[in-house]
């Protein structure tokens, strides 16, 4: 059962990712990315991380992508995104660099003694309780730093978005 769900979700995620790059209009890219994010949320459920899956849907697909779509609609929604027509070499360079990245990642995947799923995974691993406990004990300092980051981001966004007469 698990492989079937995995291959379904991963196919949808890969197709969405390809759609982001292939589609020439930004609006369709954003919608493809939402599809990809939803499929990834399914994979997170499969990996027994329900809290992360919920955050993925609510925050990522629900808030961040809506912000993206707002801005796309605000500017020019259906302008054809110009690819690197003038600079053909950029396309070859992009694909070559991507392949190099894949080759660098390949040894990680090729290791044979990859752990399989533990037979009795602790069922409380991905719950909000476990993650919250970890955040507020082991990762308290990064969490507080995050609040400073968000404050700076809010102020920066307001200042940058303000119309200077």
């Amino acid at each position, binding site marked *: 059962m698990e492989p079937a769900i995995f291959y379904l979700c991963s196919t949808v995620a*890969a197709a969405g990712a*390809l759609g982001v790059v292939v589609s020439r209009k930004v609006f369709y890219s954003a919608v493809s990315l939402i599809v990809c994010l939803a499929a*990834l949320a399914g994979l997170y459920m499969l990996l027994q991380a329900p809290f992360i899956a919920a955050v*993925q849907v609510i925050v990522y697909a629900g808030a961040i992508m809506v912000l*993206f779509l707002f801005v796309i609609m605000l500017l020019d929604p259906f302008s054809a995104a110009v690819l690197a027509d003038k600079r053909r070499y*950029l396309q070859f360079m992009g694909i070559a660099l991507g392949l190099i990245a894949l080759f660098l*990642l390949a040894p990680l995947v090729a290791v044979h003694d990859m752990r399989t799923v533990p037979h009795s995974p602790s069922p409380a691993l991905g719950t909000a309780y*476990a993650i919250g406990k970890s955040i507020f004990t082991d990762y308290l300092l990064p969490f507080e730093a995050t609040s400073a980051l968000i404050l700076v981001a809010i102020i920066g966004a307001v200042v940058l978005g303000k119309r200077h007469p």
Partner: protein
Amino acid sequence: MTIAPYLVLSALLFFVGTVGVILKRNVIAVFLCIELMLNGANLSFVAFSRFLGRVDGQVFVFFVMVVAAAEAAVGLAVTIALYRNRKTLNIDDADIMKW
């Protein structure tokens, strides 16, 4: 199931995102591809969290999402400022700070 298929999908998402960042000329499309790369890394984090039986990976994913939200807010504000001043979304036209 082993962890390998998850890592392959994660690498694929990161690869597609990298290619998109380099190929795309529209600022917002580049942002979308960066989000794709972040999600490829997130999938690795959650997969390792599951297979090592530790919750730390999911905490990292949480932090990555927070940083992605902050990045999207500031980046989109910069995009709007760029469009207001230059009437363009093409990254090749925003080259004042390029040497």
